[in-house]
């Protein structure tokens, strides 16, 4: 297991990305899958920093990487006071057309990218924060 704690400050997600890439490379993931993992970890960590921890630098985001024989599990914990409404977020795909017409924020792609790039994603609330659990299979 590899565990790291980062301040809730944008930019620190790159530290999580670098560690995840290093673990994935060590496990033998192909380069294109490592790129998927890097983007998924970046987006999930940014969500934890901005939304979960409201960019409070004193509040840490915890990233736990669990390498196994056939898969890599990555858990990202924030310290949000209320649960993240994952069902709603996952059910609403971002529309580029809506964004280009000015009817929706240009942002809001993180969940879509995470969902698209990893094999499994689920959200839970521990009572002290949200956990995003992502799984990437070695042979997918």
């Amino acid at each position, binding site marked *: 297991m590899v565990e790291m704690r980062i301040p809730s*400050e944008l*930019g620190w997600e790159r*530290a999580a990305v670098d560690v995840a890439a290093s673990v994935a490379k060590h496990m033998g993931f192909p380069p294109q899958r490592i790129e998927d993992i890097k983007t998924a970890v970046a987006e999930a960590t940014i969500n934890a920093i901005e939304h979960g921890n409201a960019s409070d630098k004193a509040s840490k985001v915890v990233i736990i990487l669990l390498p196994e024989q056939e898969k890599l599990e990555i858990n990202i914990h924030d310290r949000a006071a209320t649960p993240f409404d994952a069902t709603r977020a996952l059910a609403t795909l971002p529309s580029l057309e809506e964004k280009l017409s000015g009817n929706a924020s*240009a942002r809001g792609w993180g969940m879509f990218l995470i969902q698209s790039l990893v094999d499994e994603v689920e959200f839970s609330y521990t009572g002290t924060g949200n956990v995003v659990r992502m799984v990437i299979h070695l042979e997918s």
Partner: protein
Amino acid sequence: MANGVRASLRQLSPLIVIDLEGEVTTFADEAVNAAYARACEEPGQAVLFNFAGVDYLNSAGIAILIGVLTEARKAGRRLLVTGLTPHYQKIFRMMGLAQYMPIFETEEQAREFASQ
């Protein structure tokens, strides 16, 4: 912790090229929009964003491009893209952006496209 982006302009007639270097994240907003505003002062109807010098791009950075694209479409200006890694080409296609910002492997291909 976050590093910035450098955006510089050059002519590649009939294109204006915006070379991006560094990290394209939420912090790139001012630099990218300022570069695009300068590009609009130049003659030509197409702007090529060159990502060859970008070592990190996230969804907040892509959202800045969507904002630029929104403005460009209002002005009837075409935006083109080059220098993306295969991974980010895939991301742009997944998001539907490639439909509005054609992706080219080389600047020359983009220039030929803009010359047609």
